[in-house]
């Protein structure tokens, strides 16, 4: 395995205060993820999956330890600096799609680049192309409320790829979809990921989905219970 981690987690600890007590959600985690690989984080409810994803993506600061994303130590950055990193290198896919209800599908996809200050005319063509790739070229001007769950998640996937992220974080991407639609979305996600050469970090309850990744990190009570390579070929596919 080439040693080129895009994400490096060192001694990561996160505590939350509840009343007069501290609750330790994550305890001294250490792992790294190589660029271009796919990795699933699984575990039962309350095991700390979402907290870990948030810390890895720079959405929150750890209590102790460090997250290095694309070589940048996230803990030392201000929120706005972290926002800039996210905007440039990170893509997100959420369980509840998280589309802006007042924007059309096309406008939703353009948001990350427009936040960067790019003009509509500069980003429109890429957004349209991505919506074409996810099969929504006939839904460009529809609002989220006019789209089905599967269609909304396709828009979310197109939005996740618009900024050509180096790493993509997906939180239960099929959790709110029926099996058939879920499978379609899974395929779309992995195909695009492969096509764009992006690193994928995926949080899921769904073991069958997790097993489609090259590596599975299993969490239990805030610690890494198991870290195994499922498919060396998948893990290495982009590094070869």
């Amino acid at each position, binding site marked *: 395995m080439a040693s080129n981690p895009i994400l490096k987690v060192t001694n990561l600890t996160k505590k939350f205060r509840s009343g007069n007590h501290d609750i330790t959600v994550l305890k001294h985690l250490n792992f790294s993820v190589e660029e271009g690989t796919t990795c699933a984080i699984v575990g039962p409810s309350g095991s700390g999956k*979402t907290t870990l994803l948030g810390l890895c993506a720079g*959405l929150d600061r750890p209590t102790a330890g460090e997250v290095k994303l694309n070589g940048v130590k996230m803990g030392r950055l201000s*929120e*706005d600096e972290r*926002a800039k990193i996210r*905007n440039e290198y990170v893509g997100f896919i959420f369980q509840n799609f998280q589309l*802006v209800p007042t924007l059309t599908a096309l406008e939703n996809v353009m948001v990350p680049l427009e*936040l*960067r200050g790019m003009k509509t005319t500069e980003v429109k063509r890429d957004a349209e192309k991505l919506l074409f790739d996810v099969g929504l070229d006939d839904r460009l001007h529809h609002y989220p409320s006019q789209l089905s769950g599967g269609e909304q998640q396709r828009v979310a996937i197109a939005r996740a790829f618009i900024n050509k992220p180096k790493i993509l974080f997906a939180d239960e991407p099929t959790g709110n979809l029926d099996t058939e639609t879920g499978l379609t979305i899974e395929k779309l996600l992995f195909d695009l990921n492969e096509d764009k050469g992006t690193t994928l970090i995926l949080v899921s309850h769904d073991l069958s989905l997790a097993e489609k990744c090259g590596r599975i990190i299993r969490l239990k009570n805030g610690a890494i219970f198991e870290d195994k390579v499922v498919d060396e070929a998948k893990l290495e596919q982009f590094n070869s």
Partner: protein
Amino acid sequence: MAWRDARSNKKRLFIYVSAIIIGVAAQVAITSFRDSLNHTVDNQSKTLLGADLEIETEQSFPEPLTAYFDSLGGEQSTVIQFPSMVLFPQNGGTRLSNIRAIKGDFPFYGILETIPQKAAHSFQADKAALVDQMLMIQFGIEVGDSIKVGQVTLPIAGAITKIPGESPAAALIGPRVIIPHSVVDETKLIQFGSRVEYKRYFKFDSQRNLLAVETRLDSLQNDLGIDIDYETVAERKEELGEVIGNLAKFLNLVGFIALLLGGIGVASSIHVYINRKIETASVLRCFGASSNQAMNIFLIQAVVLGFAGALVGTLLGIGIQYFLPGLFSGFLPFDVELVISPFAIGMGLFTGTGVALVFALLPLLALKQASPLYALRKLEGSITSLLSDKTKAVLYAAVALAVFGYAALLTESWLIGGVFTLGMIIAFGLLLLVAKLLIKLVRKYFPSHWPYVWRQGLSNLYRPHNQTATLMLSLGLGMLLISTLYFSRDMLMEELEFATRDDAPNLVFIDIQPDQNQGLNELLNENNLPVLQNVPIVTMRLDSLRGKSTDAIDDDSTNNVSDWALRREYRSTYRDSLIDSETLVAGEWIGRVDSGDGPVPVSAAKEIADDLNLEIGDSLTFNVQGVPIQAYVASIREVDFQRVQPNFFMVFPAGVLEPAPQVFVTVTRTPNHKISVSIQQAVVKQYPNVTAIDVSRILATLNEFISRISSAIQFMTLFSIITGLIVLASSITTSRFQRIKESVLLRTLGASKKQIIKILSVEYLFLGVLSALAGLILSVAATWLLGYFYFDITFVPNLWVIVIGTLLITALTILIGMFNSRSVYKKTPLEVLRLEAN
């Protein structure tokens, strides 16, 4: 259950009712203040008149009347009241004043307050004058200086600070100067044509039967053929009670608008709240709760919250009452004794609770219709979509009926209540229409190439459950009320000022005796001032109309002529041609006749022709100071009475009235204030009985008056604005969850804090600008209609009112919006995942 559910939403629910609090506070403050005024009038009733009885005539009391006065006994005091110029020899200042020459101890009740106080008792014996404090300050005069009234120069014994029964604002119209009755003749001011009121005040020891006195005065009026007016304490009380009632009704309606806005705020908040609570209600239904039980949980919440809001509002209203005397003191003839009114408290509690209940009905009834299935499947769209159109129509009608009933109760008039309700429905409907139209237009024509934050801020207005239209309605209504008030005031003042522009007359001399007329005109010419008009005035009364005596017409209850027009003293002129403020609308203008040629052809102004129901050819008999003159209506004129110049109801042709006793009026124009003051001083010195009316001073007085009235109304309109802002704050709280979700999502996607703040600012900027515009558009339309139909003035909107109004409303909206959203942009992006997890 209602309590258990409410306790977790205490903060959110409290803000729902703050709109009710303000509305109720406005109502309670006004009603309580009205009751305090009435209480004061009851307590100080005798002070208001200063005596038990006042008798007034326009000429010196004839012998039979003084004989009757003597027979009445009791304590008596005589007051002669007339307008005249006064002059301060110290600095040459002159001012048209209201002179009262007092003999006796008037006022018998209440205290004539002066500085020093002893001056009020000693001025008659010391042959000194008392002068309005405001006038003394204006001219830099002090006690001990002197004042010239007509031909008499008197030392000033004291400054008048308060006359019982008179409002301080009376001094604005004519500053009061009190002199001893004994010097009236020496002033030589009372001459033919002078407008003088002769008053006799009585104080009776015992309970006098004033009804018998009134009957006797009526018969003396008929016997003597003069007008005898009288007023008792009860009549003055009734008169004041009516004024107070009308003032309270008007202000209560303005306050009621705030309450209605509060109601709309509650309706909209409860709507959003219940929309979110539908899952809870459905789960309860799944566990066996009946539809009524599910509804009752939230019904109880609405009623309890309404009552709590009403209670706080009532307490606040009682507190606000203590600030109201300051606003109205200029107009009140007494010091208000503030009382806590049980009626106002009861009304506040009832109204607040009622409004909360009535305006919450729609979503509550919809909740009753909600199927338990919504525990499993999310309801798409608004909860009110569950109600049929028919049910909604019935509910809206019920709300309108409740508003109508309450407005009628407030104004004690079904008609006013109806007009108010209809006006409100139209205003609300139009505002909503304009608001929606503006939102639609902005969305349609918004430049798509504008930067992202601008487009995102704008699109936030279309966020589900954002209450954009409601917000625009409440903020826009506040804007509509305030700007209409400003526009109307501006329109009236512009029109008045227009009359003084260019070569329009600005100085009028009245009460010029025939032997002074030529001299005064020459004085003007010597000072290079033009004599724009110099007209004779002959006073007369109407004796008969169409062959029937005025008394007979007056006694006939079926007569269709105005009593005022029948009984008034006509100050007519004669001339051979029409002037430029007059247009003939009917009949033939006859400019000259020879006396003895039969009935005189007169020309009537359209206004008086309407009041007397005159037609061309109708016969009239005028009593010209004892001499009957037969006349007929030869023509009817349209007269522009707004011009600063003498205009007349009745114009006689030349050749008839020349020998009659008459006075003259001269109109001139002075180029500036300095020359105006110097010519007034010169005229007063040479002709002390001549009165100068300075138009610019009248305008300044009117402006002052309108400003004072406006500030009182503005104070009440302020409640509407505050309510609008509370609705804004409450709506932002209501949609806070959505905002957090959106901004956190954007932060997750890489938006900086600055970008989030910009997006929110743009949203509030659009909200403020659109609300202000909606209110302004309607306000301009309303003022234009008011000008066109009521004042007969073409309204040109003042750009500054529009610009400042829009800026103010927008700034307030942004300020309150950003203050209430401060937690939104402080949330960390991790929230988005937490919200997911929840």
